């Protein structure tokens, strides 16, 4: 996913001299071809995230479109003030590419696991927040964002995910994606790589058409009223997200359902816990621990 995103930025930069890539001391070999071919559009800066965000804002103010990449938390936590003041307050087109969304960096501990990035970024006015499920969807989002004014935060998964985004149909909005039979009595709403799990759950229940999947690569839901049509009246609507339960997809959906006077008693969530996770291991270990498995979700659905 990261490779797809960075290569897409490189390809965009070839045809648009305003596209800039900025890295914060990224691993050896990152976009070396771009560095050779487009040296004026490639910046590998020091480990200085606060500076880099302000720097990108300055470039954007002068008409450039910077894509900046580092580990997600080092933007969303360390440089939050710069993101809000320098970028979002000015509605500048700085695109944040956050590596290691969710529990990807589980072995590295809670400084690196991005379990609250949605909460931080969704609270920032003007910020569009994305969490694609595979490399194809990532490429599409990176391209779309190159022509949209304003900032965005795009969360990376681990990489190497099977391509599933092409299997979905859009539902009244390009960012509400449906897979399965809309007549099913239950729905799983997911974002990011957990959509792969949602599909597995759906397939495990397929014979009785009990469940369909809504995938939301974009988490800003304010205007997406059509989302609520697919939730309302279901027996169970389960929101799964690789994020703490507060401030992410679940909170957003609840907030907007409440505002529309829709019954939320059918709604529940499977998420990471509301605490620091110190257990190391790998991403799958945490999916298993926190109920992000086919068995646990089927059981929750009461099938």
């Amino acid at each position, binding site marked *: 996913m990261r490779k797809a995103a960075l290569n897409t930025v490189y390809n965009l930069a070839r045809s648009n001299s305003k596209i800039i890539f900025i890295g914060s001391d990224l691993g050896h070999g990152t976009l070396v071809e771009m560095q050779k071919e487009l040296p004026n559009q490639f910046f590998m800066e020091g480990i*200085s995230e606060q*500076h880099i965000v*302000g*720097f990108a804002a*300055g470039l954007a*103010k*002068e008409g450039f479109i910077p894509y900046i990449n580092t580990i997600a938390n080092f933007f969303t936590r360390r440089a939050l*003030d710069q993101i809000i003041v320098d970028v979002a*307050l*000015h509605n500048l087109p700085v695109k944040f590419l956050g590596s290691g969304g969710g529990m990807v960096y589980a072995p590295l501990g809670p400084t690196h696991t991005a379990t609250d990035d949605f909460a931080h970024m969704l609270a920032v006015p003007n910020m569009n927040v994305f969490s694609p499920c595979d490399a194809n969807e990532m490429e599409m989002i990176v391209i779309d964002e190159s022509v949209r004014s304003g900032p965005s935060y795009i969360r990376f998964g681990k990489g190497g995910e099977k391509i599933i985004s092409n299997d979905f149909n859009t539902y009244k909005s390009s960012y509400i994606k449906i897979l399965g039979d809309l007549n099913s009595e239950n729905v799983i709403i997911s974002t990011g790589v957990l959509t792969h799990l949602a599909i597995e759950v759906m397939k495990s229940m397929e014979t009785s058409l009990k469940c369909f999947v809504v995938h939301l690569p974009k988490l800003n839901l304010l205007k997406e009223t059509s989302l609520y049509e697919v939730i309302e009246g279901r027996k169970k609507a389960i929101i799964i997200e690789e994020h703490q339960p507060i401030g992410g997809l679940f909170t957003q959906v609840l907030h907007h359902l409440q505002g529309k006077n829709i019954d939320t008693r059918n709604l529940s969530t499977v998420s990471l816990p509301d605490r620091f996770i110190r257990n190391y291991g790998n991403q799958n270990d945490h999916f298993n621990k926190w109920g992000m498995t086919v068995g646990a979700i089927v059981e929750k659905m009461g099938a």
Partner: protein
Amino acid sequence: MDYRPKAFKEPIDPQGRELRKLVIGAAGNAGRGHIGPALSILEILRCLYESVLVHDPKLPNLESRDIFILSKGHGALGLYAVLASVGYFDLAELDTFCKFESRLGGHPEWHNLPGIEFSTGSLGHGLAVAVGIAVALLNKQQNSRRVYVLIGDGELAEGAIWESLLHATKHKLNNLCLIIDFNNMQANGILDKVLEIKNIPQKLTSFGFETFEINGHSINEIKSALDFEPGKGKPLAIVAHTIKGKGVRIAENSPEWHHKAKISKEEVELLLENIY
């Protein structure tokens, strides 16, 4: 050379006194404001907008303009007074300072007011943005345009500034001028008592800047230092020795006048009487 006694002694000319009346009048109308930090930078701002910057108040987005960012956004009253004086907006609008739905907030916002290039207020941001703009201008081959950023000496405690200093040198930004308002005073008191930052000029030089010290209230010294030709050598740093509250006897070198959330009419009268 010891610049502080010179800065203390520097007389204020009639125009400087008028600007001080505007600052105090606006703060008095609002009943609040950062007066001291605005008075220390008035001569610097006046020289920039009257003699140094390429700009046009009637064309705030002039393609060939130089860029100025007030990183110490709490000096907004000084910037508003100077921008109004050179014609960016009507002087009468200064009376709306901090009022509901005014364009003139306690810190400057770019989308509100012509002449404001970037919103500031949270300290330590301006230099990074200025570095980005300076790189962008060189990238666009607009090599004659210059970027100025004014930061406070207390603001130097913000770590992000030192990140940006490294990057300014890395990118050989010979179109960038960093101005330090070295008034040796922050909200709580004398700089050295809050956080000692010794040898600021030497530090900036060691970071790769061409560094000069000036008396920050001397019109001649300011003009001569700030009007540089881009494209030569290193990024430029001007350490301007200033006096917080300069030009108003009771406010000079007084942390009490760094910021006040309540200013009485009597205090306003007293400040005006103390302009020299």
